[in-house]
């Protein structure tokens, strides 16, 4: 978005203005949001629509490994899986991206070269975000320099919950600058934000600060992604597009393990944000085990009999 005069350009001028704006956002009706999300989860998606949804969901997966025990070998195996999720079926699309720790970025960059698959790296002292800004910026620059074209940052929940919104805003702005051309996904860690109102505020804050994606969770905190929280974030990106003309993506991450869950999310994307978001550029799933379930369901639809985990790689 160009720096045209917009009603929002004023709100980030001072801590007080930002607080007034964020607290002026309409409150979230918790019961209503839960009921709406549960209602959308009951849609029945079958046969050709299901096949389409499964292929789309595979293309939206950010195949993730974020363990202390990650090795270059494991990351290479994951990259091979990202290129060809189902080696037995050439019609199976590749996933959207690989998501790893910064130390694994060089390995992954080499393994993904020429595939068109994005390479995301978590940064900014993931998953807690409890580090000085300088360390976070260096972390980000190192990941980008090593070849990551997407950065998943965590916000300082401590500062956010204490009401120091401008501090969070400036931090995201600084990281966005450090990203250069890389896309920035801002992890709100909704499991630590306590209320749905806070989720809405954090979403707007991250979008105002220039985030290209807003992401629910690190996957290290329970609850991770839930349907109602994603619903609130989808409403936020929809309203943000209406207000500013800039489109922001959404990425639920953590806890989405089955095809049934993934399809519920896709239904919600279509109903809340609109079909403009039904695209890997604008909606992603942060997941690891989800992919195997998608592949098993895909095989079931193609062959007519139930598939089993023995026929797919473990990670």
């Amino acid at each position, binding site marked *: 978005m160009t720096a045209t005069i917009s009603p929002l350009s004023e709100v980030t001028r001072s801590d007080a203005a930002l607080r007034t704006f964020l607290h002026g956002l309409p409150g979230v009706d918790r019961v209503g949001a839960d009921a709406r999300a549960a209602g959308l989860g009951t849609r029945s998606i079958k046969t050709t629509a299901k096949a389409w949804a499964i292929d789309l969901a595979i293309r939206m997966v950010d195949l993730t490994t974020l363990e202390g025990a990650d090795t270059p070998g494991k990351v290479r195996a994951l990259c091979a899986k990202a290129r060809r999720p189902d080696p037995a079926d050439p019609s199976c699309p590749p996933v959207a991206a690989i998501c790893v720790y910064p130390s694994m970025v060089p390995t992954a960059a080499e393994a993904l070269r020429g595939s068109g698959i994005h390479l995301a790296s978590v940064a900014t002292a993931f998953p807690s975000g409890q580090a000085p800004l300088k360390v976070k910026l260096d972390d980000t620059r190192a990941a980008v320099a090593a070849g990551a074209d997407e950065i998943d940052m965590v916000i300082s929940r401590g500062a956010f919950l204490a009401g120091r919104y401008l501090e969070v805003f400036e931090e995201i702005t600084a990281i966005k600058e450090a990203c250069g051309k890389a896309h920035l996904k801002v992890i709100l860690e909704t499991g630590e934000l306590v209320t749905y109102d806070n989720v809405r505020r954090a979403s707007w804050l991250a979008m105002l600060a220039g985030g290209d994606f807003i992401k629910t969770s690190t996957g290290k905190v329970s609850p991770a992604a839930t349907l109602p929280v994603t619903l609130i974030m989808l409403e936020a990106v929809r309203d943000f597009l209406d207000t500013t003309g800039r489109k922001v993506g959404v990425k639920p991450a953590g806890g989405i393990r089955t095809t049934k869950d993934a399809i519920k999310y896709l239904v919600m994307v279509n109903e809340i944000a609109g079909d403009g978001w039904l695209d890997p550029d604008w909606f992603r799933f942060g997941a690891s085990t989800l992919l195997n379930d998608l592949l098993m369901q895909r095989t079931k639809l193609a062959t007519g009999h*139930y598939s089993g985990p023995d026929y797919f790689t473990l990670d």
Partner: protein
Amino acid sequence: MPSKKDAAAARTTTGAAAPARLAVRKTYKLFIGGAFPRSESGRTYVVADSKGQFVANAAQASRKDARDAVLAARAAFGKWSGATAYNKGQVIYRVAEMLEGRRGEFAALEVPESELDEAIDRLVWYAGWTDKIAQVAGGANPVAGPYFNISSPEPSGVVAVVAPSSPALLGLVSVIAPVIATGNTVIVISDAPRVAITLAEVLATSDVPGGVVNILTGSAAEMGPWLASHSDVNGLDLTGVADAKLALELEQAAAETLKRVRRPAAVDWSADPGLAPMTAYLETKTVWHPKGL
């Protein structure tokens, strides 16, 4: 304030006729993962007694119940196959104990006394086999080299079984016990719902971990093909399939994923079952280990 007990006593002493009790009838549901859910499809079918009179509605399982049962059986497999043979024997013996305690219930379901005895004895027999089958089906092999060479029988995994409809109890016990005695987990299709689900209640109260035995009541012709072609099912027992055409179809579907299939000819249920029901779902693991320096 008078307690309920006082009130009840007062009612009796006043001599007023106590209202007739509402009949409490049992709902025959499925047995999946240690729980008793209704069929996902919501379907039921009518069970009649030997005189053709209505006795109960039983849940009619669907292919999705079968799919859920496979998930439950797979989840239970790791722990059950890893349990010690001694422990498995104790658990199966415990099933015999519980069955002994519920003789009355099975008698009410028209299970003859002699069949009940045989069913209990068969459980005890298989309980004894759990820690002996490894010696009989495996062993140390003489090899021409400086190696120890040891073969040990390992469970295949998840086994789908079509139970015979008659003799209901003895038939059911005779197909379940050998499969779980060797460390497999099992999904049983039975069309004798009252006996099958009453046996499920016995299993649920006898330390058999949830998911080790799953019982689906309904049609083998409906669920059989889904289980026979399911990639996460490792074995298929067609003992209860009377229809030769269906049995052939199931065998062919099972061949696609290289399942171990057992389809015995006419079975004499009172005779010694031998080792075949147990060895059918065992695979031999052979280990070569260097000997000496």
